[in-house]
């Protein structure tokens, strides 16, 4: 499905899409958070981008791990440790591999979601990125098990993530900063769920 080179390409697209949406993500964070999610993510992915030349020859596991470490050390806030851990765990899941297939991709996604839950202890329904990640993971798993093409199962994943984002509008946050505004969080979509969806779209864009 994917080699190291393509992973590098995907990460470039991620950085680009996050950069383009930085203001949008920050604006989403204003009413229910602290007005910085896009700024944080953009800072992180710019660092990841600038470090790509150094890992171009590495295996996919190493590339993802480096991205995770960069995110941990530049994003800060909640999303830094969460996305950072997600990428690092994803890297560990495919350590040493220069080429991955669909079931490796499922392993990556499972490791990423597991990493976020390990750090953040959020379940579905708490209005976090988890509400986009878990549905996306399930849709991708289903698609892969049905033998769908990467383009098809990634599209399923994106659709599920987007539904997850919509769902976050309907619920009260009980994790993260949005929990502080209580009922006022209803009607607003979660910035982290949104950024996750953008990242997944970045992958899908290359299939």
């Amino acid at each position, binding site marked *: 499905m994917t080699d190291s080179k393509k992973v590098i390409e995907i990460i470039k697209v991620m950085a680009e899409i996050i950069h383009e949406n930085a203001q949008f993500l*920050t604006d989403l964070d*204003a*009413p*229910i*958070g*602290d*007005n*910085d999610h896009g*700024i*944080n993510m953009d*800072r992180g992915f710019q660092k990841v981008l600038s470090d790509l030349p150094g890992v171009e020859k590495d295996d996919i596991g190493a590339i993802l791990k480096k991205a995770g470490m960069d995110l*941990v*050390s*530049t*994003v*800060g*806030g*909640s*999303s*830094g*440790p*969460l996305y950072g851990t997600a990428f690092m765990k994803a890297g560990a899941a495919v350590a040493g591999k220069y080429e991955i297939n669909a079931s490796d991709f499922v392993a990556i996604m499972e490791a990423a979601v597991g990493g976020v839950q390990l*750090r*953040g202890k959020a379940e579905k329904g*708490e209005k976090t990125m988890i509400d986009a990640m878990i549905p996306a993971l399930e849709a991708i798993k289903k698609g892969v098990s049905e033998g769908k093409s990467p383009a098809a199962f990634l599209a399923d994943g994106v659709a599920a993530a987007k539904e997850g984002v919509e769902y976050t509008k309907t619920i009260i*946050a*009980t*994790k*993260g*900063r949005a*929990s*502080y*505004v*209580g009922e*006022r969080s209803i009607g607003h979509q979660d910035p982290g769920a949104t950024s996750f969806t953008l990242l997944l779209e970045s992958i899908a864009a290359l299939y």
Partner: protein
Amino acid sequence: MKKIINEASQVEEQMVEGLVKAYPDYVKRIPGTTVVVRSDKKTGKVALISGGGSGHEPAHAGYVGKGMLDAAVAGAVFTSPTPDQVFEGIKEIATDQGVLMVVKNYTGDVMNFEMAADMARDEGIKVDEVVVNDDVAVDGSLYTVGRRGIAGTVFVHKIAGAKAETGASLEEVKAVAEKVIANVRSMSMAITPCTVPAAGKPGFEIADDEMEIGIGIHGEPGTHKEKMQKADQIVDQLLDKILADIDFAGSEVAVMINGCGATPLMELFVVNNHVSDVLASKNIKVYRTFVGEYMTSLEMEGFSISLLKLDDEMKTLLDATADTPAFKKL
């Protein structure tokens, strides 16, 4: 956005530089980091580290010095610092007695500091932490992330810092820090929002006759909006919530009236006038009062009230000598 800055992207860097250039006799920067440490490392005591996003000045770097913190780590504006930065701070200040991290209860802060602690433990450094959660605006029982840490954190710095200075063990310093945390409660309000430089627009909008009650310290909206009221009524509302959370009656307290950044000191004194009267009427004895900017949110206009219920140990430690850029006690 009209601000006295250069590029928005340089603001954290230039702030840290401006601070260490102002107070070289107190603090220095670990090169290549946003970590500020005491200019003369103090050994033979537990080392204290705290930090958080920038934009809360003088917190936290202003509290580095004798009798308070050994290091402060500054993240981007309102964004918790990253683990590697915290780790650099821990390594620099670590003593045989160990390191205590004073963390404010935010998901991001807790995760980043704990990741740093893991890194330090891997290198054999003794690290422990306390998590400050003084803000009664957000109810700990309803929301699983619990109460936030706000201005009451400065009392933890002061008292745990004084305890560490006595040569107490990590366990003892942690115990007194937790005693402060258990006995301090705060609540905030604001009448204007603030603007994260890199975001370029305010965190919330508010009408000319409205105020936000229960705000945090990151420019985020509060628990609810209300029609603007007189200072005394606002004080009554905040104090009601604080006094409902712990029974302060008959005890001695330290009071902090903290300005959020743009509040004239005059107004903070007007606030203290009523706070003082209300406490007297409820048989709560004020032992010490601190009025000023201790934990700000950029140019937000508003204030928080913190009450710390004191015992003899905390009184002694609160009164112990401190000499830092932003908090001094002779």
